[in-house]
C-alpha cells in the first residue's frame, strides 16, 4: 500500500507546483521583453533594464549580438525589438514592417599612444585623420602633424592605425565621418560596418582596439567615448566643420546634438560633421527597430517595449549621461511617442500606444 500512497502524494505535489508558480508570477507581475542588436548602446540599455525593472514591472533581456544580427532577428520576429547603430533606409523599414526610433546619442573619439603627449593635447585635422588611416603618413613627426602641434614634441615612431576587426556600428559612424571629410576615403574604402582598411591592424571589440593602442607606441585608433573615458585612454582634439579645434567632452557632444535635424524618415538624423563652433564632429544616434504589425500574442510585448523606452526617455537621462551618452531632446522624444501611436497597430488595427 505504501506504493500507492507515495504515488498519490507525488501527484498532489505535482498539482501544487504549477499553482505555486502561478502565484509567484501574479505577485511579481513581471513581463519580459527581449531585444537584440547593437553593441554600442549595450551599457546604457543594461543599466536602464536594471533601474526600470521595479517601477515598470518589465524585465528587459538584451542581447548585444551586433546590429546586423539584431536586424535579422527582428525581421524574423524572433525577438520583441531589434537595435541598430546604422539606420535602416525608409524603403527597408517599410519592407520589413518596422518602426525605427532613436534612444540615445554617442560620440566616437580618437585614441593615440604617443609617449610624452598628454590627453587631448594632440590636434588633428580631418584630412590628417583620413591620411593617417589610409597609411599615407609614415611617422608621427611628419611635417604636416608637426606644423599643427608646434608646442608638442612628437616622437619619430611609425604610425600604426588600429581599427575594429569585427563589423560594428562604431566603425560605421567613424567611416561615415571619414567619407564625409575625405574624397579619397569616400571613393576608396567607403563607409560601412566593416570596410577594406588600406592600412593597419584590426582588433576585436572596443577592448581589443584599446589594448592594441595601449601596447603599440605610435598607434591611433577609434572607440566609443564612454570606453575611452572609463579606461583613461589618451584622446585627441579634432578640427570641426567650423574650423575650430574641439576636445571630446560632454559640452562639445551636446553642441553637436543640438544641431541635429530629426525631421527625416526613420528619425535617421545625421550628426556627423555638423557646423557649430563647439560641435564634436563624430556623434551618432543609435536606434530601436519595432515591428509595426506585431502578431496577436506579441501585442503585450510590443506595448511593454514602448513603455520601457518611454520610461527610459523620462527617467533614464541621468543614467545615460553618467555613462557618457547623450540623451535625446524632449521634442524628439515626443515625436517618437507620436510615431508609436500612429504606426504600431494590433492585428485588429487599433493603436497599441495610447498614452
Amino acid at each position, binding site marked *: 500500500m505504501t506504493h500507492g500512497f507515495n504515488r498519490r502524494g507525488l501527484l498532489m505535489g505535482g498539482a501544487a507546483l504549477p499553482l505555486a508558480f502561478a502565484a509567484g508570477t501574479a505577485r511579481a507581475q513581471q513581463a519580459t521583453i527581449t531585444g537584440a542588436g547593437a553593441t554600442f548602446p549595450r551599457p546604457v540599455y543594461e543599466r536602464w533594464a536594471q533601474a526600470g525593472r521595479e517601477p515598470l514591472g518589465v524585465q528587459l533581456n538584451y542581447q548585444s549580438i551586433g546590429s546586423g544580427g539584431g536586424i*535579422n532577428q527582428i525581421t524574423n520576429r524572433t525577438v520583441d525589438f531589434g537595435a541598430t547603430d546604422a539606420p535602416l533606409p525608409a524603403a527597408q523599414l517599410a519592407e520589413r514592417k518596422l518602426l525605427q526610433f532613436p534612444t540615445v546619442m554617442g560620440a566616437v573619439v580618437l585614441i593615440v599612444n604617443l609617449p610624452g603627449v598628454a590627453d587631448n593635447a594632440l590636434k588633428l585635422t580631418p584630412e590628417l585623420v583620413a591620411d593617417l588611416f589610409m597609411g599615407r603618413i609614415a611617422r608621427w613627426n611628419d611635417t604636416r602633424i608637426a606644423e599643427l602641434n608646434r608646442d608638442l614634441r612628437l616622437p619619430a615612431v611609425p604610425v600604426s592605425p588600429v581599427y575594429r576587426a569585427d563589423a560594428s556600428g562604431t566603425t560605421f559612424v567613424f567611416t561615415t565621418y571619414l567619407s564625409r571629410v575625405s574624397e579619397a576615403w569616400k571613393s576608396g574604402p567607403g563607409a560601412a560596418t566593416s570596410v577594406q582598411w588600406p592600412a593597419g*591592424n584590426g582588433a576585436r571589440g572596443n577592448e581589443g582596439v584599446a589594448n592594441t593602442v595601449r601596447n603599440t607606441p605610435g598607434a591611433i585608433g577609434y572607440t566609443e567615448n564612454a570606453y575611452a573615458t572609463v579606461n583613461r585612454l589618451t584622446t585627441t582634439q579634432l578640427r570641426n566643420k567650423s574650423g575650430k579645434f574641439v576636445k571630446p567632452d560632454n559640452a562639445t557632444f551636446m553642441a553637436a546634438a543640438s544641431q541635429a535635424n530629426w525631421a527625416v524618415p526613420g528619425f535617421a538624423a545625421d550628426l556627423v560633421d555638423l557646423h557649430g563652433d563647439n560641435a564634436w564632429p563624430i556623434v551618432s544616434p543609435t536606434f530601436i527597430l519595432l515591428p509595426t504589425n506585431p502578431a496577436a500574442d506579441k501585442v503585450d510585448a510590443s506595448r511593454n517595449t514602448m513603455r520601457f523606452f518611454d520610461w527610459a526617455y523620462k527617467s533614464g537621462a541621468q543614467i545615460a549621461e553618467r555613462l557618457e551618452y547623450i540623451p535625446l531632446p524632449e521634442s524628439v522624444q515626443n515625436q517618437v511617442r507620436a510615431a508609436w501611436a500612429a504606426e504600431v497597430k494590433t492585428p485588429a488595427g487599433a493603436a497599441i500606444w495610447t498614452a
Partner: protein
Amino acid sequence: MEDDSGAPPPYSPLPEFSEKGPRVSATTSDQVIRRSSGATGDLVFAWLCKGAGLLVLLLLGGIILTLFLGGLPAFRHFGLHFLVSTDWNPVEGRESYGAAVAVAGTILSSLLAILLAVPLAFGIAFFLTELAPQWLRRPVGIAIELLAAVPSIIFGMWGLFVLVPFVQQKIQFAFGEELAAIPLIGFLFESSNYAGTSIFAAALVIAIMIIPFIAATMRDVFEQVPAVFKESAYGLGATRWEVVRSVVLPYTRTSVVGGIMLGLGRALGETMAVTFVIGNANRMAGSIFDATTTIASVVAMEFPESLAGSLKQSSLFALGFILFVISFIVLAISRWLLRSRLKA
C-alpha cells in the same frame, strides 16, 4: 495500480529482490526469460548504435550541404573568381568578396605553425621515449596532455597580452631592422606593421596549441618501434641520434607525418586564438610581421553583422565551405597515413 494484491508478475526486472520460492528454482526460469529479453535488448542496442553512427554521417552531410547551399549565391555571383579575388569590401554599392587573402592567411599561418611546432614536438616525443628517466615521463606526459586541454580563448588572451607585446618589442623593435637586412630572405621580415599582431604571432600561438597533438602522436608511434630494432642498432655502436635517424624515424615515418597532418587540421580551423593575434587585415602578408587574416577569423568577425540573405553572408558561408574542404583534405590525408598504425 495496486500491484501488491494481484498475481506476481511473470517477469520481475530485479529478480534478486524477489522473495518468492527457493532461489534455485527461480534462476532456471529467469535464465530462459533473460535470453529472450536479452535478444530484444541486443536488437534495440544494435539499432541505437547504428542510429548514432548514421546520425554522425547525416550531421556531417547536413553541415556540408548547409555550407554549400549558403555559399551558392556567392559562388554563382563571383564564379571561380571568388577563389582568386583579394577583395573583401562590404560597403554598400560596391560589394565585392574574395577568398584569396583568407585562404592564403589560413594556409600560411598553419604551415608556419607546423614549421615551429614539429621540431619542438619531435624533441618532446624523443625526450619522453628515449631520454627521460622513468619518474619524469609521466609528469611531462601529463603536462603535455594538459596543454591540449587549455581552451583556445585562453591562448588568445595570453597571446594578445604576452606574446604580441613580446613579438613587437623583443623581436620587431629590438632587431627587426637587422632581420630585414639579411640578404635574400630579408624581405620576409620587412614590415611597416609595428603593432606586433601578425601572422608570426598567430603561427606562434597555433604552434603552442598543436604541439601536444603532434607530440602525443609521435610519442605513441615511437613507443611502438620494436625494442629489438633499436637494441640491434645500439649493439652495432650507433649513437642515440643515429638510432633515431636511421631506425626510429624510418620505421614510424608515415605515422609521424600523419600526426603532423592531424595538427595541421587543427591549426587550419583555429579561430579565437588566431583572431586575437593575427591583426585581421584583408591584405596579403608579404612578410611574417604583416597583419593578415584567416578564414575562421573572417567568419567569426563578420558574421554577426551580416544580414540574412545578403551577398556578404553568402560569401561567409562560401568561405566556411572552402575551409571545410581544406580541412577535410588534410584530415583525410592524415587518416590515410595513420591507417596502418590505427589498425595495429
